[in-house]
């Protein structure tokens, strides 16, 4: 570029700061260059440290906004559900139809037959799925679902162990750790809040030892770790239990911490030593189950007990499996046995987030601010309480959305509920499905069954930016704006920082924001939802309620408000320093290794102490004769769940492929790059093989989020991992995306 051109560019371009927000676990400032209402290029945070630098997804966002497949006007279905045949209609026709269908279904079948599914597609405070829920409540109520696909097992573990959902110290505290254990966690790819990866690199450079426990030699293992312990999927709790055995047998555990701060350790000790079931959980016992050699287990246990402070950070991934809640219960117990909770350089396990946004009421409050001011959902109120709603019943009014009442079905089971309805023991016969920000078909287990279930509904509406595999089943699709096309507010999760997401350009085509859509639909339904307030009035209220942000106008102009913590935030520091005055909100006031609350449920598959339970579809399931490979479904760097899968600029980075060890590939005469069929009873896909030493033999990985694209024979060509996963929930509510058996064979095409 010549200097003259450069000068011309500078004078005609404006830069507007907004914050990338796409459910990746982070939120990163973007300085967006705009010319004539067009985004021309993107820079990221170049301000004061700590900078929050956007990743490749944020940098590709211009391509997303202007993608040729972007939905730019409302459409109605013209072909069979799922085929993707639609025609353009006006907003008025779309909204009139939706309002009429909501009224018709409500009057014919009652409000519980209206099913709502929404997600955190854009994790923001105003334009989120909660607005539609608020509208449906005012329209008479709706059936919701419960369960966090990311970490319901972790939530149960935190609630029963700590009495509250909080975990992890703030990330800069990693610099105080001597040992860091990344257990089933790959932050090099799944970012989990800004700068996590940078702090891990700096901790390693400062001399911390880093151990990764994972079936795969992940990028985190490759770049950060001193040691990789490869483990068979679904057996993590067995390894943790054997480590406890070593600590107890060699008297290495922190008895003073356990006595002061925990309840029920003796019961766990009895289980570990085999006093309760006759099976001592020795390293030899665990070697057979986990595939980790005995000496490795012993030395790992000794090191964890000795090298203090140590941060054991338990990825949600290992908890997204059969009995995944046991994994997080066990990590919490091991961190307590080593006295690493509530101290600098330690970490409170319970998932891989940090310091729990949830400790900061302001982060949780605005997120649901609108509906918190509203009414409760009549459908939730009318149903009896769920007996096992351990998580939900502690969440106050938010508990409705987390499943305090039996009106809600676990998200894994929605397809089954649609198919079977009340006759099958479910709370309602669903007739109408309202989808906001959610590619449900793609992202919940057993995609083929969900596709079948969606055919059964009378009416489906979807708010989307793209014609996702789920949106293809909708009768009406409403085009949503991206965050570039509306004003909003968000939090950077940890840092902490707050972002004003400035509107950068006018909406593309006829796309509308969530707020505009809900306002227009409310008008059609004759409902007053926003009390005459405009979008910005709400944003001002939200910001006003947030004690950390001094002034709305400055915040809006600067785009980013960073809050510097004087010292790292230590989760449960007060509870550990001064337990007499700061009891944990559990029955005993302590960390409950034994949970009376769980015991009271009387479910033998949900024991009151952390327990290794053999998973279904594990290595010892007779099904291995037909399907000998364990499937894990991980994150990839080029998507945030299902988002961004359609962008060529990111697709070309790496193809959607099944990762497998050369030993497994050789047996099947598969070479790297060959097309293979991956299948089980639930479905099949044909995708390339990625043959690599970076995964343990007997395990294959298909990164989740690739768009389901069945061919004429029903074989998925997109590589949607959930074609193969089982629609079942763990006894404690964990989703089981990492439990499943498959076979792989070479195909000639």
């Amino acid at each position, binding site marked *: 570029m010549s200097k003259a051109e450069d000068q011309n560019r500078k004078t005609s371009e404006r830069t507007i700061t907004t914050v990338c927000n796409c459910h990746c676990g982070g939120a990163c400032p973007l300085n967006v260059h705009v010319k004539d209402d067009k985004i021309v*290029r993107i820079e990221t945070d170049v301000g004061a440290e700590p900078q929050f*630098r956007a990743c490749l997804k944020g940098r*590709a966002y211009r391509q997303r906004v202007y993608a040729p497949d972007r939905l730019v006007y409302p459409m109605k279905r013209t072909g069979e559900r799922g085929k993707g045949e639609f025609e353009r209609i006006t907003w008025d026709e779309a909204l009139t139809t939706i309002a009429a269908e909501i009224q018709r279904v409500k009057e014919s079948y009652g409000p519980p037959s209206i099913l709502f599914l929404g997600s955190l597609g854009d994790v923001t405070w105003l334009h989120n799925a909660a607005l539609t829920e608020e509208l449906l409540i005012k329209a008479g109520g709706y059936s919701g679902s419960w369960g966090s696909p990311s970490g319901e097992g972790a939530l149960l573990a935190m609630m029963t162990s700590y009495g509250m959902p909080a975990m992890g110290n703030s990330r800069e505290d990693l610099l105080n750790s001597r040992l860091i254990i990344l257990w089933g966690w790959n932050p090099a790819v799944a970012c989990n809040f800004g700068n996590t990866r940078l702090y891990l690199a700096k901790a390693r450079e400062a001399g911390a030892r880093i151990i990764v426990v994972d079936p795969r030699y992940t990028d985190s293992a490759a770049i950060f770790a001193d040691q990789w312990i490869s483990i068979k999927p679904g057996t993590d709790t067995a390894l943790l239990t054997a480590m406890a055995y070593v600590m107890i047998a060699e008297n290495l555990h922190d008895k003073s911490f356990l006595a002061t701060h925990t309840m029920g350790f003796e019961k766990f000790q009895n289980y570990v030593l085999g006093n309760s079931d006759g099976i001592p959980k020795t390293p030899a016992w665990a070697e057979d189950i986990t595939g980790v050699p005995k000496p490795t287990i012993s030395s790992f246990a000794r090191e964890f007990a000795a090298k203090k402070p140590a941060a054991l950070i338990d990825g949600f991934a290992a908890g997204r499996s059969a009995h995944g809640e046991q994994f997080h219960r066990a990590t919490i117990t091991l961190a307590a046995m080593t006295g690493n909770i509530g101290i600098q350089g330690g970490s409170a396990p319970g998932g891989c987030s940090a310091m729990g946004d949830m400790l900061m009421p302001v982060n949780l409050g605005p997120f649901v601010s609108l509906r918190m001011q509203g009414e409760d959902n009549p459908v939730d109120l009318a149903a009896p309480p769920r007996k096992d709603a351990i998580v939900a019943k502690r969440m106050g009014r938010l508990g409705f959305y987390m499943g305090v009442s039996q009106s809600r079905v676990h998200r894994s089971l929605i397809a089954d509920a649609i198919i079977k309805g009340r006759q099958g023991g479910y709370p309602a016969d669903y007739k109408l499905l309202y989808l906001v920000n959610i590619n449900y078909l793609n992202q919940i287990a057993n995609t083929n069954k969900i596709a079948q279930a969606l055919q059964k509904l009378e009416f489906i509406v979807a708010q989307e930016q793209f014609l996702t595999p789920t949106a293809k089943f909708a009768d009406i699709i409403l085009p949503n704006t991206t965050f570039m096309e509306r004003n909003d507010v968000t939090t950077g999760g940890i840092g902490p920082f707050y972002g004003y997401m400035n509107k950068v350009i006018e909406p593309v085509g006829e796309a509308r924001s969530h707020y505009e859509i809900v306002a227009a639909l409310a008008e059609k339904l004759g409902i007053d939802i926003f009390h005459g307030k405009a979008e910005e009035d709400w944003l001002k209220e939200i910001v006003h309620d947030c004690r950390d942000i001094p002034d709305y106008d400055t915040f809006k102009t600067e785009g980013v408000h960073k809050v510097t913590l004087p010292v790292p935030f230590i989760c449960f520091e007060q509870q550990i320093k001064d337990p007499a005055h700061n009891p944990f909100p559990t029955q005993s006031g302590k960390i409950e290794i034994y949970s009376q609350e769980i015991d009271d449920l009387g479910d033998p598959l949900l024991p009151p102490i952390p327990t290794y339970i053999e998973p279904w579809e594990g290595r010892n399931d007779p099904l291995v004769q037909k399907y000998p490979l364990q499937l894990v479904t991980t994150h990839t*760097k080029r998507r945030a769940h299902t988002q961004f899968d359609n962008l060529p600029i990111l697709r070309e980075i790496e193809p959607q492929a099944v990762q497998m060890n050369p030993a497994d590939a050789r047996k099947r005469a598969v070479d790297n790059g060959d097309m293979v069929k991956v299948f089980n009873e639930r479905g099949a896909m044909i995708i390339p093989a990625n043959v690599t030493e*970076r995964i*343990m033999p007997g395990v294959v990985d298909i990164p989740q989020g690739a768009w389901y694209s069945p061919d004429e024979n029903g074989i998925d060509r997109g590589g949607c991992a959930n074609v193969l996963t089982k629609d079942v929930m763990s006894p404690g509510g964990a989703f089981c995306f990492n439990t499943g058996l498959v076979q792989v064979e070479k195909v000639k095409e």
Partner: protein
Amino acid sequence: MNQIGFYFDQTRCIGCYTCVVACKDWHDINAGEGAWRWIIPVEKGRYPDVFAAYLSLSCLHCAEPACIPACPAGAVTKRDEDGIVVVDSEACLGNSECGMFCKEACPYDAPRFGAEEGAKMQKCHLCAERWHEDKKPICVDSCPMRALDAGPIAELVEKYGDAREAEGFLYQADLEPSVIFTSKQSKP
């Protein structure tokens, strides 16, 4: 000449491709066109003793660039003031008229041509325009791991040492690529 070059810390790079995508966004390069910056994954060993690393590379603005004498049209030149190797796309004959000799000559695969008929050579010019605004190249400013830097080679050497090789990268002494590394060592 005050040669400008790159520094790359292989111990920091997580292979996230942010530099690659940021470069494409900044320079308006679409999917399928020749990337000015790219990632080379390195994998060695046998399960469970595995080594993996990444290498983020672009044109390395060699002191003695092989592409310059290879170009039949004299379209590739080296700037006197900072040693940045630039291509004059007016003068470049394009992929169909010439044998893409520059691409053939470069051992680092830096000259790139699009697939379409007549596509001109394009490659990294170290974000020459950004230096006017006191900004580093977009790849450097984008890296979430701070694994990349750029500047006068002498300054980079002073700051980071003078290692010229990394896992997956071979230093060609005759070309003197303007890059220094912190290399990720594979286990012995």
